[in-house]
């Protein structure tokens, strides 16, 4: 279990260029372009699931997050052109250049064996039907009025491959008791600031019936975060908090980094109706 400390904000599309050049100056490095596909799964609603476990402890149902990198060469084939300007093309619902079928194949396993080889090959030397995912469950951020940053615990593991007669991550997770809830696409840039702070600017789309709808239309989500490997490592938590607050102060008056609403970061099943 690790801890993620974070602060968030947003900027509009028009401020993008200036923000990127300001941040590049501040951290001394240009940002890196990244993209990922996230599938959220929820416990099968047909199941009658107990609220307590065998030790009679209360266990709330939480969503599982599956996440995997996007093949960015699909979006922009030229490696040299894959810099922050790439994101300026993406102000609408449409994610140009990305074949959504690839994503469905990632999730459900490609039916066409030849296609699978091509997919594996483009993921840097993967052998055959590699199915690498990050699988995580996050807690609701810790409560308390005295908090200066958001603190969220995340339990994560990596899935290296799927096997069996229908080898796909989704078919395994349905055996585990989980079904697909919603799916997101993220394209963004990431600054590696000092002291272990990362700052991400991202565009987010919701994927629905093979169509994409941008939920960050008109702007970008700004997220500054520090990952702390051990939740008991008070020293790292304190220094991470200090670093985040220093960045918050530095950008203050320009972009206001704030603590995100902890309810909107809650992945428990019962929560969705509250937002």
């Amino acid at each position: 279990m690790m801890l993620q400390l974070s602060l968030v904000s947003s900027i509009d599309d028009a401020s993008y260029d200036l923000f990127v050049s300001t941040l590049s100056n501040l951290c001394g490095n240009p940002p890196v372009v990244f993209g990922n596909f996230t599938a959220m799964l929820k416990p099968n609603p047909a199941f009658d699931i107990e609220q307590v476990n065998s030790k009679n402890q209360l266990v709330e149902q939480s969503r599982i997050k599956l996440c995997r990198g996007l093949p960015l060469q699909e979006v922009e084939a030229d490696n040299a052109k894959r810099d922050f300007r790439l994101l300026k093309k993406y102000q609408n619902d449409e994610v140009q250049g990305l074949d959504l079928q690839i994503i469905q194949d990632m999730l459900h396993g490609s039916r066409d064996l030849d296609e699978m080889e091509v997919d594996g090959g483009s993921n840097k030397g993967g052998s055959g039907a590699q199915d690498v995912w990050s699988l995580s469950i996050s807690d609701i951020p810790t409560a308390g009025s005295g908090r200066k940053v958001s603190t969220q615990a995340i339990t994560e593991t990596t899935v290296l491959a799927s096997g069996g007669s229908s080898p796909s991550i989704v078919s395994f997770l349905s055996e585990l008791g989980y079904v697909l809830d919603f799916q997101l696409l993220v394209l963004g840039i990431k600054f590696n600031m000092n002291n272990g702070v990362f700052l991400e600017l991202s565009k987010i789309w919701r994927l629905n019936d093979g169509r994409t709808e941008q939920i960050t239309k008109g702007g970008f989500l700004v997220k500054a975060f520090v990952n702390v490997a051990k939740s008991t490592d008070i020293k790292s938590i304190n220094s991470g908090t200090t670093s985040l607050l220093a960045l918050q102060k530095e950008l203050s008056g320009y972009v206001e980094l704030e603590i995100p609403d902890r309810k909107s970061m809650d992945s428990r099943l019962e929560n969705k109706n509250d937002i």
Partner: protein
Amino acid sequence: MHSTVIFSEKATPASITEFHDILSNDLVSIKEKWSFEFKTYRLTVKNLPQGSSKLMHVITFTNRDNQSVIIKNNSAIVTSPATEGVQPSLTLNGCSAGTLDTFDNLLASKLSNLWTQRQNIKGDFGSTFKTTELTVRATNVFSYGGFKGLLIELECEDDVSDGEFEQRVMKIRHLLDDMLTGEYRVCSASMDPKNRNLICDLAFQYVKVLEV
């Protein structure tokens, strides 16, 4: 790549030494020690359709980078808690925070309302023998401290035909027939013969021989 798993409940704790002695004429080398852990989880959901399986197995192999295979029915995934095993594509794209837990941990801490652990079978500090034909791994198996039997894992790294592998396995089985009294369980099956995956097949064979 082929594999077979053999489990004898009738063996004694000393059988493994006896097995080593019998095998010693054919040994090329003796390799590293190894362990495995076999856990059974049971789905707590009550309103499942009749006849559907409630058991899931998590098999962890220390000698294979601590990878775990999780098997339920005919689906399996391979997971790893090794941080160095995180694919760069995951970290670079903001999917992984780089600190990993085992799948067992995830089940115990987050999904214990769905899954309860039932059984814990272990093989600790087993031996690995290399013969000219096969890699033979043998270990005594314990469940909560009590001796359960002898488990032997046969693996062939060479690219041989199914028939050839079967013959090599038979030679070992003949040795065992002379040595052990009573029946033992053998499984050479693959989860999906059209699409072999060594570690998944191996885990599947563990389930078949250990789960009564």
